């Protein structure tokens, strides 16, 4: 639990000064939301607002995280602050788990409830004559032919890539704790590289789906769940890879100590979370 303030005026708990970054972030989000609405509805000026908001958000994050890194490197964070970060990151990852749970819930609903229901006797006679329930399915109203994404090509390779990156980041963490900086940098580089290769494979896979399999976002529930689940996962991998790259840069700059390196651990947790989500995707979207 919380600790007593130590002697010699060491901070009891770090309370930051007022700063302009949060309001800048709010303005950025507002511009992005408004811009997106304009773009989706074919109105002019949407892209400008969207792009402005995005750049502002990037700038805000750059400055805010910059401040945090500076504070961390100048030892303003006590053990108690460190523990706060751990709780915060854990609950954030939990919220992300629940976000994916919503989409997995939709997938299971389609496979277990709605598609079999549409192929049931009642629906067959009244609404959708001739539709038989099967998975993958794009629903009774979808007439084009499409092929599902096979599990044992690129997706299996991607599984291997992500699992390997989970191993390399563990090696890097071990190296950091043993203070073997060369090994740390090398394996952090491997981790980032594996993440990037994963993303490249994902892009190739999407291209394959659109070009060869006639598998699109609009291909009924199979297309919807396939692209939304793997897409949100890919988005998280992208964020994770950027975070890993920042950590790599900080490793190269000599940041982190064997006993205090929460930023590293936070990104590692996040990366493992992304990894576990992928395993769920591989089993339920690609394989079974």
């Amino acid at each position, binding site marked *: 639990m919380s600790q007593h*303030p130590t002697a010699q005026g060491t901070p009891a708990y770090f309370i930051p*000064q007022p700063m302009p970054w949060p309001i800048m972030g709010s303005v950025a989000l507002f511009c992005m939301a408004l811009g997106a609405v304009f773009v989706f509805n074919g109105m002019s000026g949407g892209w400008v607002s969207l792009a402005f908001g995005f750049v502002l958000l990037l700038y805000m994050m750059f400055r805010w995280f910059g401040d945090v890194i500076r504070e961390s490197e100048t030892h*303003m964070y006590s053990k108690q602050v460190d523990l706060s970060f751990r709780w915060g990151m854990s*609950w954030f990852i939990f919220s992300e788990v629940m976000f994916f749970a*919503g989409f997995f819930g939709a997938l299971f609903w389609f496979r277990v409830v709605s598609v079999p229901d549409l192929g049931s006797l009642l629906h067959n006679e009244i609404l959708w004559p001739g539709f038989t329930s099967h998975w993958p399915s794009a629903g009774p109203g979808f007439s084009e032919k499409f092929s599902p994404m096979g599990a044992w090509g690129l997706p299996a390779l991607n599984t291997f890539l992500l699992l390997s990156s989970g191993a390399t980041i563990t090696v890097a963490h071990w190296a950091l704790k043993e203070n073997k900086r060369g090994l740390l940098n090398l394996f952090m580089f491997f981790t980032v590289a594996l993440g990037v290769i994963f993303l490249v494979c994902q892009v190739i896979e999407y291209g394959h789906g659109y070009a060869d399999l006639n598998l699109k976002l609009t291909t009924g529930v199979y297309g*919807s769940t396939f692209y939304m689940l793997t897409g949100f996962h890919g988005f998280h991998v992208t964020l994770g890879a950027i975070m890993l790259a920042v950590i790599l840069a900080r490793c190269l700059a000599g940041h982190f100590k064997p006993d205090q390196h929460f930023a590293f651990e936070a990104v590692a947790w996040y990366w493992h979370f992304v990894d576990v989500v992928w395993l769920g995707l591989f089993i339920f979207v690609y394989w079974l």
Partner: protein
Amino acid sequence: MSAVIDDHGHAKDDHHHGDHHHGYGGMMRWITTTNHKDIGTMYLWFSFMMFMVGGTMALVIRAELFSPGLQIVNPDFFIQMTTMHGLIMVFGAIMPAFVGFANWLIPMQIGAPDMAFARMNNWSFWILPFAGSLLIMSFFVPGGAPGVGWTMYAPLTVQMGMGMDLTIFAVHLLGMSSIMGSINIVTTILNMRAPGMTLMKMPLFVWTWLITAYLLIASMPVLAGAVTMTLTDRHFGTSFFNAAGGGDPVLYQHIFWFFGHPEVYIIILPAFGVVSQILPAFSRKPLFGYASMVYATSSIAILSFIVWAHHMYTVGMPVTGQLFFMYATTLIAVPTACKIFNWLATMWRGSLTFETPMLFALGFLFLFTMGGFSGLVLALAAVDIQLHDTYYVVAHFHYVMVAGALFTAFGGIYFWLPKWTGKMYNETLGKWHFWLTMIFFNITFFVQHFSGLAGMPRRIPDYPLMFETWNKISSIGAFGFGFSQLLFLYIIVKAITSGEKAADKQWEGADSLEWTHLPSPAPYHSFETPPAIK
């Protein structure tokens, strides 16, 4: 860049209110602040403004329903009003109000210097005005605000104009704000308690917020997923809620209520916490059954995730499903009744006085219990088939949302205003506010039980002649209720500007740290050194 708190304790005796040793002044002070008290104040005022906006919409609804036939607004605008009234009251008024309480009170009640993540705290608040603007802007775009009901059911949402997109992004932003706020609250409670403040010594308000924040972190992302699916169904051709593509509109209802049912406990649990602070203070007795209150709150949180489909008995569900959700729902009555009886036992043989906060707490106890009972009626699948989407449901959730959450928010503000501002409100006017609110509330909503039982549907601007008397009574009550709240504004502003000086321990029965260890008004930075907890 950064202020570091030193360890020279001056929590108890040092009145340095207004001692803001940082660079920003004027408006920028509020925009950039990292102080939990500033942020709590902003949450509360924002919530009051949204309460006025949402309340005005309610009055438009009640004005239209004063007489049968279409009088003032067209049906399209009417449903936009009910939609926005619901969204604004839930996400803009009630939730931020209790986050305001959390910001003000949690650090003081657990002996912490501030919230765990002071900058993120600022961001959580400052997302809200922008999200609120997006919601309100939807009235001014082609097609107007979405007319879909606050639950935003597909497939209606897929057919709406661009106001729906604004609403979807507003919900995303509100969700981000809630998740950040909740992570902050959980972390503060778990990691910032003063030495000796064990979990089972925390005031019950802190406990209820710990559990509320957990519910928020678990349920808000699910709502974000649901509205994201709506967005992609609208614009990118996905088939989540489209049967032709194998999807299912009913899926939306499941996902929404998986969020939506925990949401109602998100709203009411902090209210339980506030009542659990007020009742002991004015009974001059410790809270009866503290541990059972904690366990009851936790049980409600767990049960809240397995009862969602009682909102959708009529949508088509296997009988086994209906039975499961019916039994699970009625099970919630057990921990809730445990709380009600504990509050009654707290007052039993207490030395009771009836200042305004106590009146609101008692009003809560009486009316929330009634709302709980009508909830039990609605939980019964067989009965609900008759009552689904009638005014009986409207009456039920206004008894728990208004008499439950809003009454306690009023009570909490009267209770802590002396601590926050160092000024006392006018007790006579406070009592007037309570009685006007209490009487007009019941005039407005009690009759809705009858019109609902007789079959009057909700969200419809017109009705047969047989419902006229009930609706006239209800509308008169609603306008009385609405204008009574201006008295509340007057009382608060009067207290802040020219109220009498409040004592450090204004209520003799109050025993949490903010009353026993801090002066009134509480200093800008409290508990820079953790207090000793016995």
